[in-house]
């Protein structure tokens, strides 16, 4: 009994010391995407035994030091409290918007006209957006005239975005004619869904 009384505090002291030595200095937390998709991250020690922790579930966490790496679980609330600002600092996710045109013209359909206005509003809050505009046509007309029309469509959208304040040095426009049909058709077929430009904003 007296021996225990002496040894226990000593043991406790040693445990505390050991705890200090392996106090994690690094954390990795796996997050779900906005759509709820969760990927996978493996966290492997560089030194020592190359111990590895595999993160597969949302908010799974690896706590690591030079000596050890252990699996933990964080909660959504902990993540937003600790990393909310960091996550808000992520650049806007790249996206593609498709605009449709009236047959044979570089004039937008009424609905796509509204979408263009939405793009303009969005760009106002994204000062260094890089934009690629690729124009397409349906299969009515010759390949040459469709190359010209697709480019004209892309350039027309580019002009309108620049007029709305987008940086001209950051917008590229190109025409692909009838080479990249959204809806595959035979030649000389009217297809409104092929008369489009794809605007990629990053």
């Amino acid at each position, binding site marked *: 009994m007296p021996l225990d009384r002496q040894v226990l505090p000593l043991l406790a002291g040693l445990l505390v010391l050991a705890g200090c030595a392996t106090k994690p200095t690094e954390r990795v*937390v*796996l*997050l779900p995407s906005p759509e709820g998709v969760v990927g996978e991250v*493996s966290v492997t020690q560089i030194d020592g035994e190359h111990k590895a922790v595999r993160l597969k579930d949302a908010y799974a966490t690896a706590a690591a030091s030079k000596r050890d790496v252990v699996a933990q679980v964080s909660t959504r609330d902990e993540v937003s409290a600790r990393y909310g600002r960091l*996550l808000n*600092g992520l*650049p806007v996710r790249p996206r593609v918007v498709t605009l449709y045109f009236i047959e044979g013209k570089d004039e937008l359909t009424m609905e796509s006209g509204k979408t263009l206005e939405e793009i303009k509003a969005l760009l106002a809050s994204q*000062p260094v957006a890089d934009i690629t505009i690729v124009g397409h046509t349906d299969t009515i007309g010759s390949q040459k005239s469709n190359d010209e029309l697709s480019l004209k469509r892309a350039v027309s959208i580019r002009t309108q975005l620049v007029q709305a304040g987008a940086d001209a040095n950051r917008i590229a426009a190109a025409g692909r004619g009838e080479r990249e049909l959204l809806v595959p058709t035979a030649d000389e077929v009217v297809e409104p869904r092929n008369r489009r430009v794809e605007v990629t904003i990053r």
Partner: protein
Amino acid sequence: MKPLSLSIFAAMACLFTSAYAADEAGIIKSRQGTVSVERQGTRSNAELGAKVYATDIVRTGADGSAGITLRDNTLLSAGPNSVLALEQFSFDSTTYQGKLNATLRKGSLAVVSGKLAKTSPESVQFRTPATILGVRGTEFVIEVEGMAGDNDAP
């Protein structure tokens, strides 16, 4: 002899510049406070919209943060007091093949992986002082408690 060596020099210069341009990794899309980029030994203030290249080191101050979009659509957000070394980056926009190696020496980093991690996960690697991270199409946060070093301030 002279014209020949000149043309060799010109060819090499061309090679060098094109290789350097090909290593363009991304663009600083947002920034707050003090943010610097170290390129080939020289540190300068990182402007909004500036290009970031492979082998650049991005540093943020106590008041700093930076958002970077890489060419393969990888998104990065570095929090205050961070040192992020972009060791390797290449990306072929046709085949989606390439390589991304980056180390967070200290601070915090949020990552949304891009096309590289989707097409060839083995080519994407993030490191911290103690660990190596393998990434399969995903989002995550890394935090590294910093030990103060002379070289840390942006």
